[in-house]
């Protein structure tokens, strides 16, 4: 052995194999949970590792949802993909299309191959219907699912002598009262496409696109420039003119407004619960069901989820996939799900976890925390309310963001903006159809 090959050999040995991990199958798990949620997620992996003598899950935070998805796809193209990656709901169509080409290991098949007893019916229908194929097989494991709710600042409402609004007309009234009572930015929301177009549509049983919101085929076209949505967006724009609504940025950027008391009515994910419980100390907050637009429907239908699921990528060894299957089983157990639900505000993904939370008295000590789950299971989902499956939807959401921002700043009317968003969105849908058929 000459010096060079000796050096190479030792380097490889040093890099590739820490001695303690040699007999454990290692699984890479990339997620997009930052802050407190990230700690909880890493804790899941640590707890699982502690209880397993054959598996080691390496849980890594890879940035926000978009960044993690992009990183995973780039890694796949380079042949360095993780075993498990967390993808948000709007990336579902992209992942499914990749599944047809063999990039994805569907969860139902993973469980079957690993010989793990897997009963899909224990999962909440409103949660898994978003992630099943046409034969009702589960493709990815729901991990964190939430739905938008109406967060309110109880102290501010009491001070203004107002009740929690249940309809949009009431919400407008209440916002006005709050403004008069010195609340600077009475109403706001986050994830605007999700909360005010996608969920607004489902909540009132109005389709957002043709072909069952994309579930029935790639030929789907957007229809959210309908009167219901346009009038709704115009209403919010008018509130903006009046000063009772103040836009606070994309995603969760407006959270700060609610926490520091500038905003008293805020529509966003139920999953802000964990953070609010920790961060809001100087007022009482609560959550309520989304308001109903009585001009569109008398009663609400059901809301749809947001959040993310765990996708398994192809290209690794069988023992490692067995570990993935065991980890998924661990994550779905009622104890883990109930503790996740109670500490974060995400909905439990199984009925058992919901029942366990009830038994543990969680909804008595933390009232209204079941708002999200009640909203999701309010009615049997219809084709217009079971979810969305649009290709290129990550980009389309950005288009919707842009067009809505043009409305909030007064550059465009709601009608013009929605027409433009539909037109630009349809162009991307066609592009996706071409690239994937």
């Amino acid at each position, binding site marked *: 052995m000459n010096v060079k090959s000796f050096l190479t050999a030792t380097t490889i040995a040093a890099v590739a194999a820490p001695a303690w991990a040699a007999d454990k199958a290692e699984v890479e798990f990339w997620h997009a949970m930052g802050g407190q949620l990230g700690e909880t997620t890493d804790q899941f992996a640590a707890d699982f590792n502690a209880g397993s003598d054959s598996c080691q899950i390496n849980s890594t935070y890879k940035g926000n949802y978009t960044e993690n998805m992009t990183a995973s796809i780039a890694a796949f193209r380079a042949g360095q993909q993780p075993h498990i990656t967390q993808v948000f709901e709007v990336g579902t169509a992209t992942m499914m*299309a*990749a599944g047809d080409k*063999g990039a994805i290991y569907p969860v139902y098949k993973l469980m079957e191959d690993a010989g793990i007893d897997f009963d899909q019916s224990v999962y909440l229908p409103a949660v898994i219907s978003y992630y099943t194929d046409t034969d009702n097989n589960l493709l990815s494991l729901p991990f964190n699912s939430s739905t938008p709710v109406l967060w309110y600042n109880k102290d501010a409402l009491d001070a203004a002598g107002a009740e929690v609004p249940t309809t949009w007309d009431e919400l407008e009234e209440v916002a006005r009262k709050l403004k008069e009572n010195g609340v600077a930015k009475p109403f706001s929301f986050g994830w605007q496409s999700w909360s005010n177009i996608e969920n607004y549509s489902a909540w009132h049983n109005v389709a957002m696109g043709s072909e069952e919101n994309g579930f029935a085929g790639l030929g789907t076209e957007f229809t959210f420039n309908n009167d219901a949505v346009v009038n709704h967006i115009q209403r919010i724009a008018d509130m903006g003119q009046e000063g009772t609504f103040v836009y606070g940025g*994309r995603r969760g*950027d407006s959270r*700060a407004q609610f926490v520091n008391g500038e905003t008293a009515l805020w529509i966003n994910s139920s999953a802000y619960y964990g953070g609010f419980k920790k961060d809001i100390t100087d007022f009482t907050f609560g959550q309520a069901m989304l308001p109903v637009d009585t001009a569109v429907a008398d009663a609400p239908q059901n809301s749809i989820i947001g959040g993310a699921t765990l996708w398994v990528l192809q290209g690794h060894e069988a023992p490692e996939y067995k570990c993935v299957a065991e980890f998924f089983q661990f994550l779905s157990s009622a104890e883990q799900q109930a503790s996740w639900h109670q500490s974060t505000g995400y909905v439990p993904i199984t009925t058992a976890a919901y029942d366990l939370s009830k038994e543990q008295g969680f909804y008595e000590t933390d009232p209204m925390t079941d708002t999200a789950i009640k909203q999701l299971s309010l009615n049997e989902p219809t084709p217009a309310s079971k979810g969305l499956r649009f290709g290129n939807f990550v980009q389309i959401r*950005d288009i919707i963001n842009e067009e809505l921002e043009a409305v909030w700043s007064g550059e465009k009317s709601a009608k013009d903006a929605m027409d433009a968003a539909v037109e630009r969105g349809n162009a991307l849908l066609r592009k996706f159809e071409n690239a994937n058929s």
Partner: protein
Amino acid sequence: MQKRVVFRSRLLPYLLVLPQIAITVIFFFWPSYQAIESSFFIEDAFGFSREWVGLQNYFELFDDPGYLKSFRTTLIFGVSVAFLAMSIALGLAVAANRVVKAATGYRTLLIWPYAVAPALAGVMWYFMMNPSLGIVAYWLRSLGVDWNHYLNGDQALLLVIVAAAWKQISYNFLFFLAGLQSIPKSMLEAAAIDRAGPVRRFWTIVFPLLTPTTFFLLVVNLVYAFFDTFSLIHATTEGGPVDATSVLVFRVYNTGFIGQDYGSSAAQSVILMALVIGMTFVQFRYVERKVQY
């Protein structure tokens, strides 16, 4: 007498330039070739299939009013950043050049921001200007300015221009200061004896002698504004609101990495590359004539 190095071996000169050529080929020509190639295809995200579409990606771009608007935004952004960063740096350099006591201290402080990573600088400005949390936004409000760059496109553009320029001032300062120090004292003294005031001395002697530095910085600053400001915009406004701060390089990222539309993203990179090559050419061809070496 002519200076000339004669290599005895024919191979040696080629060997000596080889590393530089290799770097250029690997890090410039190869990626550029790949960008040009993928701009003629439509590809799915995971890279399983690609379809030849000719110039379709380019046609779509020029049909998109948003893309055309992005040119305007980029131009405003680039010129403002370069102008702001260079004029402030020149002012500071002239001032620092006159300081007698603790000159090194001042200089170190002025050069400091250059060590801040662009993304970090972005986050810092983001916090200072955040309409709900930011201290500067709070001061502005008490002055009666309704600051909300989430909604107001002009304010957002102003924010990224100021942040990008702030980051570049140190670099420019360094070069201007070096340039100022190389100006012969005797010339300035002679002018002073001829009763030329400080302002007159600056415009007739100092500034013309600084033109090589200024020209170099102009090229560097424009390239900086066009390419290197991506992480800053990414960390502050993400191209919004609407598309007010969506400069060309940010669109390349957005289309390619967020949208996984590699074909269109590659076409945008090619256009951007052509633009910068063209601009640099124009600068060397025409602006450089005014430079006095």
